[in-house]
């Protein structure tokens, strides 16, 4: 389930890029996109826009790579860029509310996770499950930011607490705690969804 620790570290790849082998950044992009997307999704509250913001953050990372003083800390540095990219956008959006109005209401359940092949597959049970999925994602997006950030980071990618901790600059125990609180909040809000699980008390 968990990502096996990569033989080439982020620091190695950063140094390769700076030494002129620019293709090495592509590996960093593939490695980090899910987590950058998760951070942007957590910041702006819906996936559609966060895809563009994640891409921009990754490109900004490439442009500014020379300013990264500790190559091993690429992840937390990139996290900072992603957050700033989102804040820039949110600020610009406030200023130019009108021109962004065509982007639609934020966090509407239809445009969040409306994957290309999420059309109805089989009758009732699948549709019911789809409604559950929508409701679940809506609740995730409604969590306090620090909780939804860890949930999104954890489920967008196959990562350890340590990976998330390194990116957010907190301890693995804090990641554990936030994930637990997030799950408890989701459980309370979506009680009906979770109660029929095996292993439950009668």
């Amino acid at each position, binding site marked *: *389930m*968990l990502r096996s620790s990569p033989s080439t570290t982020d620091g190695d790849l950063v140094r390769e*890029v*700076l030494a*002129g082998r*620019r293709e090495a*950044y*592509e590996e960093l*992009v*593939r490695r980090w*996109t*899910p987590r950058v*997307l998760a951070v942007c*999704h957590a910041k702006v509250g819906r*996936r559609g*826009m966060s*895809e*563009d913001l*994640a*891409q*921009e953050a990754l*490109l*900004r990372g*490439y*442009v500014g*790579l*020379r300013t990264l003083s500790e190559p091993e800390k690429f992840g937390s540095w990139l996290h900072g860029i992603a957050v700033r990219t989102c804040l820039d*956008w949110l600020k*610009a959006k406030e200023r130019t509310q009108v021109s962004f109005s065509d982007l639609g209401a934020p966090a509407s359940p239809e445009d969040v*996770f*409306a*994957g*290309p*092949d999420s*059309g109805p597959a089989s009758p009732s049970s699948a549709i019911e499950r789809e409604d*559950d*999925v929508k409701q*679940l994602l809506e609740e*995730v997006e409604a969590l306090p930011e620090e909780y939804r950030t860890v*949930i999104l980071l954890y*489920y*967008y*990618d196959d990562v350890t*607490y340590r990976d998330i901790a390194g990116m957010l600059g907190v301890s*693995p125990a804090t990641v*554990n*705690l936030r*994930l*637990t609180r997030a*799950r*408890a909040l*989701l*459980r309370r809000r979506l009680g009906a*969804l979770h*109660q029929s*699980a*095996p*292993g*439950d*008390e009668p």
Partner: protein
Amino acid sequence: MSCEDIWNLISARIDGQLTEEDRGRLEAHLVECAACRSIDGSFRAGDAALRRAFVPGRRAAAGVAERTVSRLRASRERSLARRRVLQLAAAAAAGFTLAVLVFRPWAGTPPAPEVTKAAPPAVAAELAFATGGVEIQPGDGAAWRPLGKGEGAGAGARIRTAPRALAEVRMADGSTVRLNESTEVRIERSRGLDLVRGRLWSEVARAETPFVVTVPDAAVTALGTKFDVELEPGKTWLTVLEGATKVTGSGEAEIVRAGERVTIEGGVVKARTQEVVFATRWVNRLLLQKGEEGKTELASRLEDLLAAIGDEKIMHLREAELEDLGESCVRPLLSYLASPRSRGRAEGQETAVRVIARIAPRWAVRDIIVHLLPHENGTVRHAAARALERLTGETRGLKPEDWERKPLAELEPAYHEWLAWWEENKARYPAER
């Protein structure tokens, strides 16, 4: 240990992050605490639900990564091309050493990609033009829907043309792919597509990453070239118009070069022919309907064909034989002189222009003024001025031999004089029938 601490351990166990020591503690607690057993059950169910719910999100993340990579590549290629031009310019102006010092090719500074605020999502391809119905299937299993001009398609999308509809697709890397009628392709990435059925023509933008078109039994790879691929039952036709392509199938890879037309059967390159001139004429139908831009390209395809014919004539016929052909050889010879094919080939140029000077009819006046008076070769200019004197009775104040003697820069006013003359008198020199 409180129940709330236990919840952290429950979470950690689900996530595979539990230490052995904590595992013992957790299991002991669960035996005696029903409330925590319930939490354990609902956390697990929640985890499973979240994993299911994030499947589309993970797929989207993979798409974002690929789009970012293609933008990086595109910007790398652009900056490489820019740098080469600058280096050439500097090398020409100040010598190679200075160019190396100024541009320090070893420094390898990452170039700035064109980062724009909240840019629209990058796409692998977009529909540039269509003469009829074109549809897109955004992902495997999704419903087909009409694709409008200017609309994008991401990696993994399929595009198909209706019967009698032709389409032009612009890839994110700048390559152009044209689809014949009843054709279907799957966009793999900005430099790769799968031909599912029908026929495509592509003009591949030059880049380090190979451009790959896959067919059922082979892959056609190109770096920067024009080629045409047609699927037939059990057989693929490949026609290469410019550059070269590599065909990788079941056997050893084979190179197919410009001017060759081959079939690929069972992953092997078979029958080679040289008849490429008419092989891609289906593209002309698309160009005819494309308005001004299409007409320009169609005209340049025709011009290129004529220049090739002129080139052949110069190579295979003696001057007297060319003259005997009469008017029919004038158009190809004019095209040859105006095309890059004749560049640096003084002997061929001079033969061509001597024939033109002797036999060109009145409709050639415009081409002689526009293309031959400013020619790099003085002999060509001289003969062109003689031809104009013969056809129009005019010299515009400059003797024909002056067109050869004087440097090109000094001839510019005389050239403009002729252009102005043409504007006033063109009605008297009708175009070729």
